[in-house]
């Protein structure tokens, strides 16, 4: 490391000689490269990010649409209308969402309601356990994220995730983004890799809440499950909540108020 720094200094100085003061900022940045991976001042920090969805508040298709399109637009998620679709957050019926609830006579409104689904950012994620390249990994703040450049597309994680939270790019997703306004601040993906919800880790890093939370007008609460004073913990303490497939031991971080 020392040698490299010295080399950079020498290189920087000689460039300085050539290009005058212009090289200086570049040199400083290169020399301090290692330290620049610290998170920014404004970043939101948590010990274990979690989410509570108040399903009672999602009573119209428009409310779902607002949340889903906020996420999918920002993250350049292609709209593919087939069984090879890509989705990060979506809605489905009671029995499809909570497959363990085998009740014969659920309350009428519970049965008629739709429910949001997304990656649960499990504490004990099966997807991370099986990934042969560590392209899927769990961060110290509990968010399960993906490195699209390392993923080999083996789809072991899709077989392992009990929640169907992962999508595979069966073809180039950019084919489906052509007539759409791209968000250039978030990368598009290529064919042959898996993708899923990131809990908007890229927005947390600049001090913003996840997009679905923003778009939900209070129906989704996000916060640090490790912090007893956080909003999520308050909501959890006041309401009866359930999680999807709790018996599998994956420990989802997404809770539902029914």
């Amino acid at each position: 490391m020392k040698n490299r720094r010295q080399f950079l200094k020498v290189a920087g100085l000689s460039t300085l000689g050539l290009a005058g003061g212009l090289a200086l900022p570049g040199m400083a940045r290169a020399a301090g490269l290692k330290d620049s991976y610290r998170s920014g001042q404004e970043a939101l920090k948590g010990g274990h990010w979690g989410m509570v969805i108040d399903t009672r508040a999602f009573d119209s298709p428009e409310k779902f649409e607002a949340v889903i399109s906020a996420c999918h637009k920002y993250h350049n998620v292609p709209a593919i209308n087939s069984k090879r679709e890509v989705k990060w957050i979506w809605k489905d019926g009671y029995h499809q969402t909570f497959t363990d609830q085998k009740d014969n006579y659920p309350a009428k409104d519970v049965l008629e309601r739709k429910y949001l689904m997304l990656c649960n950012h499990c504490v004990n994620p099966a997807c991370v356990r099986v990934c042969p390249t560590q392209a899927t990994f769990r961060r110290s703040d509990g968010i399960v994220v993906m490195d699209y450049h390392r993923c080999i597309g083996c789809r072991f994680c899709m077989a392992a995730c009990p929640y169907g939270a992962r999508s595979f790019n069966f073809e180039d997703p950019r084919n489906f983004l052509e007539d759409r306004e791209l968000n250039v601040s978030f990368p598009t993906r290529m064919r042959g890799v898996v993708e899923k919800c990131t809990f908007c880790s890229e927005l947390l890093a600049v001090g913003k809440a996840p997009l679905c939370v923003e778009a939900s007008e209070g129906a989704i609460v996000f916060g640090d499950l490790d912090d007893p004073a956080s909003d999520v913990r308050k909501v959890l303490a006041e309401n009866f909540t359930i999680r999807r497939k709790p018996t599998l031991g994956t420990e989802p971080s997404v809770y539902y108020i029914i």
Partner: protein
Amino acid sequence: MLEKVLKGRPSFYIWLAVLGAIITLGSLVYLYQVFVGLRITDLSRDVSWGFYIAQFTYMVGVAASAVMLVLPAYFHHYTKFKKMIILGEFLAIGACVVCMLFIFVDLGQPQRVLNVILHPTPNSVMFWDMVVLSGYLCLNLLIGWVTLEAERHQVEPPKWIKTFIYISVFWAFSIHTVTAFLYAGIPGRHYWLTAVMAARFLASAFCSGPALLLLLVFVVRRVTGFDPGRDAIRTLTKIIAYAMGINIFLFCLELFTAFYSQIPGHMHPLTALFSGHDGHALWINGWMWTAAVLAILSFLLMAFPGTRDNESLLPYTLGILVIATWIDKSLGMLWAGFTPNTFETMTPYAPSIAEILIGLGVYGVGALIVSVLWKIALDVKREAGTFSKPA
């Protein structure tokens, strides 16, 4: 020894040319898949593995099954198998290559496959599968080559190779156990979450692999006159019969657990396999019933000495056994793991033409490797005088 490939009858080269054509066709379709992605398969978000991974699973069993010749010969000094062992080992080499290729063609980003080695991940079963498969391939290459070289010079194989042979016996069990662990250790896929998965895989491998070997040996006997010896065939058939019996028994254990416990998650994939979903029959139902009938039939034919030792009936018995185990362990096993899907609904899947063509190409590569290796082995045997007289 490789020069043996250069001296053969025209029919041998015609056969190689046919294989070459199949491989070329498969490669072209694969090239297309590389350019447009896996959308040319019938795979989907809910059924994310299919034909390729199913064939991989089946062929790991074929690779492992060489042990059914090696174990009796080296642990129990059953010398009558010695003549055929090399064919088993060379078949295992072809099978290993087929397995690796099936994993490879299934990848979305095949050019990144080395990431598995660059970022070794011991908690991933797939990492271990790569380790044991490549290890097994190397073991069989080494053992096969060294013992054949010794046979060519008509001397005993060197002593040190025995160590590797013993290792290969345990290694064979490991490759199929680890392959079963790919499935048996993931939560939420009811059909796969069973402790007998590895045992079932091994039982199914130890009947289907030797059955395939014997079938190929029969073809070779017809074409070249190579005779493995009547006793060897009879003993191997008995081994196949026992393994098939255990295989069927283990499947019945699954049926009992599912239907006596009445737990929906356990029952659902099985009922979907055999009688469809929500009153609708599915394409797989016919296949599964065929497999069930053929499995029982082949077992019965092998359970009784009268039909088992009937040499003109045996090829048919072995043939239907291979078909039955292939349907059960490749098509059925993969399909039922994703049915019902994680939302307890059904997403249809049936292999596409492209998948089948690419699969044929991969099998073509395996057949080419086995043809060449067997040709070498048989020519060596012919020169050494261990060819046609019963061992």
